[in-house]
Each structure stands twice: as structure tokens, then as C-alpha cells.
């Protein structure tokens, strides 16, 4: 990415939402537990390709990568994750209700 052409830099800033902080915490803690590394986080991010930068937010890319890393580490299976996601979705239509 370094050196690629790109447009102006958007200086807007935002405060992190709780779910974003939780994604960050999951990355830090699963790394500390030896389940993933910064490099394995980045490998999955880079596998997503440049389009992911246009269609997903920063922490959306991160949770996708952490989840992939947890499957690869054998901590969870895709079936377990899918089943749990269905369960979570049934709890309500807002983050507060579902978490």
C-alpha cells in the first residue's frame, strides 16, 4: 500500500464504539494467550484485498481477521461460530439488546 496513489486524507475523527473496543481487546488478549500474532492478524487483512478497505470499516476487518485466526488456531470451529451468531441475532435488533 505504501507508495500507491490515493486521494486526500480525511481528517475527521470519531470516538470508538464499545463493540470496536471489544474487537481491539479480543485481538490483544488472544495474542497474549498465544492464539494469534500481529503478523497473523495482518496476513488475513491482506488476504482480503484492497476492496475490503472500501467496503468494510477498520474494526470490521479486524473482527473478520480475529475470527479467521481463532478458527485456524482451533479455538473455535466455523460451525460453532455460525450457530452462536444465529443465537445472538435472535436476541434483538440493536447491539445493546444482542450483547
Amino acid at each position: 500500500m505504501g507508495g500507491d496513489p490515493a486521494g486526500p486524507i480525511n481528517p475527521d475523527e470519531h470516538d470508538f464504539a464499545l463493540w470496536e473496543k471489544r474487537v481491539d481487546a479480543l485481538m490483544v488478549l488472544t495474542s497474549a494467550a498465544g492464539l494469534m500474532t500481529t503478523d497473523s492478524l495482518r496476513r488475513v487483512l491482506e488476504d482480503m484485498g484492497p476492496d475490503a478497505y472500501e467496503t468494510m470499516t477498520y474494526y470490521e476487518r479486524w473482527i473478520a481477521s480475529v475470527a479467521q485466526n481463532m478458527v485456524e488456531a482451533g479455538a473455535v470451529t466455523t460451525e460453532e461460530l455460525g450457530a452462536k451468531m444465529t443465537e445472538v441475532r435472535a436476541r434483538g435488533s440493536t447491539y445493546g439488546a444482542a450483547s
Partner: protein
Amino acid sequence: MPHDHHDHSHEGLSTSGHPYRADNDTGLSYWQVMEIALRELLIEKGYLTAAQIHAQINAMDSRSPANGARVVARAWVDPEFKAALLDNASEVSRAMGFDIGPMHLIALENTDEVHNVVVCTLCSCYPRNLLGLPPDWYKSRAYRSRTVIEPRKVLSEFGLNLPEQMQVRVHDSTADMRYIVIPAQPEDSFGLSEEALAAWVTRDSMIGVGLPLAPK
């Protein structure tokens, strides 16, 4: 109404004056569902505890650029400290009580002749232990792509126009190596106490896209 906009409304802004991520106010997204599900599974299976996650978020919230500002202010008033900082910033920051983790922290001194600026072209590596979480623009494609090829133009977009004779050095962070800029002390601040000086040290001056500023 012709003037029905909300110039002075703070609705939708947090206490810091920044808007919350839109995701906070909209329906539950696919990726939020994944975060909840993965977190709960990791707790159920005993890899993590809810208390650990809570403590990690508290630690994250307690870090801010004020930490880095204390380090810079001390470097301005104490030449021996500055020499030690430039020699081994990880060790010196730890000695001040900051949790730096296992990474190597490198302090870069701005002078009359050299201006340093930090980027992470690979991802978003940032001295978060001293500055908190990185701002959105630091993580953006535009900043990461352009800072290494046209740093002066990028800096000018941040309102920082450097004289032509000033050398610009761009430092690309990695997972294991983080950089913090020690900005040059403004002449107007000479003679102030270390505590007063810390208020001059902005986050952007420690990334290299700004200069220290007199507190308002």
C-alpha cells in the same frame, strides 16, 4: 426555515466533541454479531474471561496522548533524560511507569534541520501505549499510501508547511517497532516548568504531522 441547521447543536457528539461511529445508532450489523458471538465462545471455552476483556478496555481508555506529552516535556527540560530516551525509549518510558509491552519504541528528535514523521504502511502500528489508539486518518489508505511518496504534500494538508531546507524523514512502523516523535521545543515555551510544557505537546506533534502549540 432558511436557517434551520444545527450549527451549535452537540447532539450525536461525545464528550470529546467527536461523533460516535454511526454503527452505534443503527441496527445490529453482521460484524457486530460476529464480535459478540466470538467473544462469548472464547469465554465459554475458557480462553478468556469477561473480566480480562473489561480490564483491557479500561487500560485502553486510560491511555492518551497525555502520556507521551509527559515524556516529551521531560526530554525538553532534562538533557540527560533526553539522551537516555533517544538511546532506548522503551526502557526510559517503562521507568516512567508506562506499560510499553514487548515492543521496541524508538524516539525521533526533531531539530532545526530534520523533521520526522511516522506512518505504518502495512497496517496501523502506532505507539498506542504512549498515545492511545490511533486516529482514523492514521489508519486510512490515503495517509498510509501517500506519506512515503509525498510527505511534504501530506504535511501541508495537515497545515504544516516546512521550509524547503528542512530535511523530512519518514519512518515506517512495524509490529515490533514503534516510533514517537520528540518535537522541537518552541522558543515561546522556554523556561516553563515540565508540567506546563506537557500541555504544549499535541498528539499530532508526536506523530510528526503537527507542531507543539501554546495551550488555549
